[in-house]
């Protein structure tokens, strides 16, 4: 380790990497923890109702809860099948 290395060194201080990793991880784990317990039930019941009209699999429905300072966002995402024929007729 010479003087040259010192000036050529562009390595980021490891503490700032640690902080960034922690911020992302902790935010994610808190969101997981603060998930309302009804999300799983909601997802299951939605699947039942939607399944009456459209053929969807369990993986095709996702329910997520997000939170920022101002609001809570309940996001419902349903992937409908491409093929129109798989849709049931009423």
């Amino acid at each position, binding site marked *: 380790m010479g003087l040259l290395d010192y000036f050529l060194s562009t390595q980021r*201080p*490891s*503490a*700032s990497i*640690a902080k960034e990793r922690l911020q992302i991880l*902790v935010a994610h784990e808190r969101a997981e923890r603060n998930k309302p317990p009804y999300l799983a039930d909601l997802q299951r019941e939605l699947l039942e109702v939607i399944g009456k009209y459209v053929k969807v699999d369990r993986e095709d429905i996702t329910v997520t809860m997000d939170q920022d300072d101002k609001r809570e966002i309940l996001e419902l995402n349903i992937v409908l099948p491409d093929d129109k024929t798989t849709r049931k007729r009423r």
Partner: protein
Amino acid sequence: MARIIVVTSGKGGVGKTTTSAAISMGLALKGHRTAVIDFDVGLRNLDLIMGCERRVVYDFVSVINGEATLNQALIKDKRSENLFILPASQTRDKDALTADGVESILKELSETFEFIICDSPAGIERGATLAMYFADDAIVVTNPEVSSVRDSDRMLGILASKSRRAETGAEPIREFLLLTRYSPQRVKLGEMLSVDDVQEILSLHLLGIIPESKAVLSASNAGTPVILDERSDAGQAYSDVVRRYLGEEVPHRFLEEEKKGLFGRLFGG
């Protein structure tokens, strides 16, 4: 009515027992009748750190099982008449702790003590959850290191949802951050998370910063709580912590690298 304080962290080896020993001794030296309980059933160590390992006859579990009275199991400290230690059992299974048993012991202690310090084991199993369940205050011991900060955050989640105060809707547990093994030199070099970095993530009331110190190992070698080493940086930092906990305004120390004088520079030290 005693104030019940849990010393917790999630992660092991961050300084919970060192902290429990130091703070309980500090409170006792300030004239408060204090009991300190080792919740680490099967792996007791508080007795060693307190230097009373040869005086253990009965323990926490023998009192819960009715084999001894609380007074028989409590070990009176030889340095302060206000301090009593309730050791953990070394031989029993950790499932020997029951919520009812712990509650009744804490209730009995509350009648005659001002402070009860619960030294939590690492992890989030029975011993740890029971140590924090009845707490009024929590001291979250954290090292400026990623896994410790993450585990502390996890403990905060548990304190906020699975404690008696949370379950009964009472006023929440007061949570304090104690940052231990802090090295201002390494923080300055960008090698260690700073107090501000940790606070940005945990944002707790900062009870104190304990510098990385040789005095901690010397104290544990001797079985003397480090707070009794008044000349050491860690001992002084713990004294500040106790004063802060008791409501005094004490500025934080040991945040900056110690300036060495010319003599120190020349001869090291």
